[in-house]
């Protein structure tokens, strides 16, 4: 009897009868992974649909965390903004909200990120430069002036001093008459990726993770609609990692927070539904979409199978996405509008819950109002003109996309095994494991650019001599002087006895190993500054110094 021809036979016959005529080119993903000329059902697992893909809103959530996705609700258009003084940024917030932005996202300056006040000598030249300068509750009140916190959700990119800024947000709510139970938003508060990639820290890693657990515990009890941690791959990728490293290192960080919270006796289903993620959307369209889909599936499986979460909400990976700053070029900066649009489309096709689109001038300086408007309009064009939102996970079932998703998951699992072998994330940070892996990937990519195996238009090919001619946002040096005046005036006029007492109480609580959140809140209400509060905890927790890995 004649055996049935299989798909494998057909594929082989197709390959044999059509010899490849290919350009002299390395066909690899942005992360250097080889890509085959064609993908077919042969690249998928047996029973791929039922085991690996499934339906949106159902385990393992490969196709999306909600059954109706963007037919139900579009993603939140959330543009990260912050520069100069609180009053400067408050004006930018109002401008963005007036133009249809649906959520706020605060960028803080370097002194705030490192727990220094504007008048500290180490802050010299940095005040209000790459974000807004916040020294005390007084600045925070100005920042949210005229913005009702019961109606607008706010994301805050703050990590080492996250507990302080969270307390300030609660205190602003109190002043507006909004109880903490009603506050919505997200604290980045992912300190592990600071040691791995972004490098803005205060305390040593182990103590810092406990502080993160303090905020998880506090929001669990007092802020049920608030996301206490946004576990972030964005900065790991910007520092030069591959897509797989971004995926694996970030989820490894997420597991570390979950383990630390459970070690304190918190029930996984009480906190896991409020954990969220933050991904980079880089320029390799399909690699990124595979990454987003794999991320959801990996987290769902880990939460259910490794951590024993039983509430399906604990299995959901909700995530924010930002287009890749490092993909933008200083040369021919208008081209960045196009790059950002493609990256934003990948994020939407990957099922993001919120999105920041970079402005074309961000490789040169903080964005101008005009550039920010184009970036926001890019999201609106995707949402309202392209019709890609009409069906859930439109690329699901593409042989290539599913194969890419599977490969991402397998690559992440390999890294999880390696991280476990070296003793976990904290041990990996101490040993410089993550730092070296990322530096190596960054160096390899630079080498590929210089060999012209990867092309950046306008940088190593298609170069134009015409100078870039776009306006640049300049921060007036007067900002720093004004902010220093403000914080000094505050320190001279507040009730310093009350400040001292609240700070002492905080140091005591940290020393006893208590949850510090309520003590931080008392100090914030007394108008203690970010640095004073950070110093009060440093006295017990210590400070971090990174060994200089090259």
């Amino acid at each position: 009897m004649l055996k049935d021809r299989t798909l494998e036979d057909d594929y082989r016959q197709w390959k044999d009868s059509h010899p490849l005529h290919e350009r002299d080119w390395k066909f690899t993903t942005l992360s250097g992974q080889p890509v085959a000329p064609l993908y077919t059902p042969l690249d998928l697992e047996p029973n791929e649909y039922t085991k690996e893909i499934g339906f949106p809103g159902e385990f393992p959530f490969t196709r999306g965390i909600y059954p109706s996705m963007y037919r139900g609700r579009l993603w939140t258009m959330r543009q990260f903004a912050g520069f100069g003084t609180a009053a400067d940024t408050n004006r930018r917030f109002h401008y963005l909200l007036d133009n249809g932005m649906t959520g706020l996202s605060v960028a803080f300056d370097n002194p705030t990120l490192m727990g220094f006040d504007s008048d500290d000598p180490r802050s010299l030249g940095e005040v209000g430069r790459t974000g807004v300068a916040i020294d005390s509750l007084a600045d925070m009140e100005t920042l949210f002036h005229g913005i009702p916190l019961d109606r607008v959700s706010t994301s805050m990119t703050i990590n080492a001093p996250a507990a302080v800024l969270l307390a300030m947000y609660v205190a602003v709510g109190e002043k507006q008459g909004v109880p903490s139970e009603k506050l919505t938003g997200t604290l980045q508060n992912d300190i592990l990726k600071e040691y791995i990639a972004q490098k803005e820290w205060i305390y040593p890693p182990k103590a810092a993770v406990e502080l993160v657990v303090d905020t998880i515990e506090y929001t669990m009890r007092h802020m049920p609609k608030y996301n206490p941690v946004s576990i972030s791959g964005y900065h790991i990728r910007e520092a030069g990692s591959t897509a797989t490293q971004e995926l694996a290192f970030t989820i490894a960080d997420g597991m570390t927070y979950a383990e630390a919270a459970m070690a304190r006796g918190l029930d996984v289903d009480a906190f896991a539904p409020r954990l969220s993620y933050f991904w980079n959307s880089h320029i390799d369209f399909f690699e990124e979409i595979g990454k987003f889909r794999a991320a959801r599936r990996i987290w769902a499986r880990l939460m259910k199978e490794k951590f024993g979460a039983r509430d399906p909400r604990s299995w959901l990976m909700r995530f924010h996405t930002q287009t890749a700053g490092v993909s933008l070029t200083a040369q021919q900066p208008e081209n960045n509008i196009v790059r950002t649009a493609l990256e934003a489309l990948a994020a939407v096709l990957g099922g993001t819950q919120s999105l920041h689109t970079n402005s074309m001038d961000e490789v040169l300086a903080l964005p101008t109002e005009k550039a920010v408007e184009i970036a926001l309009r890019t999201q609106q064009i995707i949402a309202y003109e392209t019709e890609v939102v009409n069906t859930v996970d439109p690329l699901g079932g593409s042989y290539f996309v599913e194969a890419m998703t599977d490969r991402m998951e397998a690559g992440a699992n390999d890294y999880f095994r390696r991280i476990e072998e070296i003793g976990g994330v904290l041990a990996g940070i101490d040993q410089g494991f993550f730092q070296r892996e990322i530096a190596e990937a960054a160096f390899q990519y630079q080498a590929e650019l210089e060999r012209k195996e990867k092309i950046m238009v306008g940088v190593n090919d298609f170069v134009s001599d015409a100078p870039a001619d776009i306006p640049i946002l300049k921060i007036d040096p007067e900002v720093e002087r004004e902010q220093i005046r403000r914080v000094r005036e505050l320190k001279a006029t507040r009730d310093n006895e009350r400040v001292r007492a609240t700070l002492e109480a905080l140091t005591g609580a940290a020393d006893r190993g208590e949850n510090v959140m309520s003590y931080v809140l008392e100090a914030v209400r007394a108008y203690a500054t970010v640095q004073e509060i950070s110093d009060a905890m440093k006295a017990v927790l210590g400070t971090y110094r990174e060994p200089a890995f090259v």
Partner: protein
Amino acid sequence: MAQQGRYRILMAKAGLDGHDRGVKVVSRALRDAGMEVIYTGLHQTPEQVVRAAIDEDVDAVGLSLLSGAHMTIFPRILDLLRQEGGGDILLFGGGTIPEDDVLTLKQMGVAELFTPGASTVDIVDWVRAHVGRPTEASAGR
């Protein structure tokens, strides 16, 4: 002093900036090109950078800044180098620095600035062409 013909370069991060991708890529490229590279690590004050440059007796300092604080930190390091007797140490740098600031800083005495998209080949070539003459530099001290 550096052995003859072998450049000694201090690669530095100053201020509160945590972006170290560029400084690490350039450090490795200079090292691969046969130079001696010392990296300060992150979050150094200008005083610490200048102290390290003089103690390590380097030929040049490569300063990386992506924090927007370049108009404060580059001039401060130039001043301190001159004050501390390191006026013959070349200061170059890189980062997100708008073009008119590049011009101003070069007028002040920063030898060269590399902005996004610069290739490590160009940086290595520039160091070879401009940092050269390490033996003459030592003779002047």
